[in-house]
């Protein structure tokens, strides 16, 4: 969970491409570089949770 995703062979350009899958799956809009800023599974999950919560507040 706290290992850098780069250790799994996730290079920086590829990380940009995955972001769209995340957007489509969660139906939210996130920064293209979110996985650069949060390069571990735990960090990414927490950043996405914050984003989803913020979007919910915004739409309420």
């Amino acid at each position, binding site marked *: 969970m706290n290992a*850098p*995703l*780069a*250790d799994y*062979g*996730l*290079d*920086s*350009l*590829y*990380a*940009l*491409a*995955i*972001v*769209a*899958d995340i957007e*489509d799956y969660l139906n939210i809009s996130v920064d*293209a*570089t979110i996985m*650069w*800023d949060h*390069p571990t599974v735990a960090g990414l999950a927490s950043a996405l949770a914050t984003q989803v919560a913020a979007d919910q507040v915004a739409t309420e």
Partner: protein
Amino acid sequence: MNPTPGLRRLARLEREFGDPFEPDNPLGFNRILAADEAEAMFGRGEQALAEFGLNAEFVPSRLGGRLDRLDDLVEIMRSVYRRDPCLGLGYGASSFIAGVNIWLAGSPQQQRFAADLLCSGRRIAVAYHELAHGNDMAETECRAGIEPGRITLNGRKEVVTNIQRSEAFVLFARTAAQPGARSHAQLLIDKAALDRSRFGYLPRFRTMGMRGVQLGGIEFRDCRVPESSLMGRPGYGLETALRSFQITRTTLVSMFCGVLDTGLRVALRHSTGRRLYGGPVVDMPHVRSVIAGAYADLLAADCFASVATRALHVLPGETAIYAQAVKFFVSKILIRAMDELSEVLGAHFYVRDGEAAIFQKLLRDIQPAGFGHAARAACQVSLLSQLPLLARRSWPEPGIVPDELFVAGMALPPLAFGDLVVSAAGREGLSGALTSGIAACRPGLLRPDVAEIAEHFAADHQLLTESCRDLDVAALGISADPRAYGLVTRYVRVLVASACFETWRRATATDHTTFTKDQRWLAAVLHRLRAAAGNRPRSLPPELADFLVEEAAHRLTSRRGLCLGLLPFDTHRFRSDGETPWRPPTSTRPSSSLGSSSALPRT
């Protein structure tokens, strides 16, 4: 349409350098070749570029330079590259790469410093490369240790143009140990501020082509630089690089079109002046076909790169895609066209003396188009992981793209460095524009071959949409199945077909006769693209081959460039309305204008 100030400067540069084929021209090929034999930069040429103020072309006009339009910059640089690519890269382009990083991420003070250096004719090197890591920039080892009040450099940079004779350089360095994309920064370093005992230069790297270019290296040993050297926030270096490279990847490879321009001239002059088997070599159908094919390839490269260059002004949110596609496509087609032209020259492409000697130099000098700055394969794989996104988000929609992309000389929005984004996030309108472009043509307008081939690529775009939509992005990284790479090749062909088709279609709206409006160049380009897509001959139908050979010969005698750009080299013919008078070549029969040796300069 008025000639832009940039095109007026191009005319001045052409006038000052004169006809490079002229044997006694002190700035011509004979002198350029002598410098190449000595593995030296062409000194007289550097002096002439300094007098012209070439480095000011890289500086935005708001900072006192001359850079307003990237397409003008490319035209000016093609004029340098068509003479001596070493001058293009070794005098100019490396400062341009450094500059773009600074205009994008530098502080106002750093931008002022860099603008003043370049406008006074001095150089800024760009120290990104480390031999051990190639295009894998995230692995950069050269370190910038940041502590309060000071930065300490350690490590080395290798194969860096002009590192030793520049006044300053942009350094790409590691600022944090952890892997990933937030561990780097650029620094702008004034060499005057460095402690000479804390760094050293590496020996020059010798090369097969671009022999005069001074490729060196630098090694730092606890070398202190001021905190103010840092450009932007630490950690954002890779992002800055990927954004600024969209400008430089697109434009630098486009400059190499000037090399094929000269290659075509050499082949035409040679095959016109030489008689074999009872007639001029240029009358042999196969020779005509090779020359015409290379010319069609030049037009495809020029057109696609020019559209992508204007996109940097018009659609900066999409150029993360186009820049990679241009680098991937244009480098290969230019290099291959030069290879094919070498067959027309026979042994003369191999000979280092005589009328055709510049060809062997250009054949070597063009090679870095395929790997310099970024390798073709790296661009290809970076597009690969974008395919599912593009197929879901953009390709099913009709592409709507503004006229400014396709019409040379139209007013462009100012270049906004800040609008370049690290990822296009699957948004791109050019490929889909082909389908809407075909639909917008009135019945009967398209030649049958143009219609058939354009439909083929529009249909392939649909097939690509279906086959890429559900691709597993996890299988499209560096370890992707090599067979998947072919999807990128097919996609890029659709982009090129669309760029050329739409450029031609926009030209049909003009009243006067222009080359760009003539459907035959488009037909020739599409034939070549279609052949590359499989199961078609690469040689053009004789009607199209004759058209292009006659056109190239006409431009040679009237001293005009071979690309779609409008400017004649001979500035006396440069009319104030910016358009060169053009009429279609009158004959399509071989040897009509080429058979008599008086039609062309003697070779």
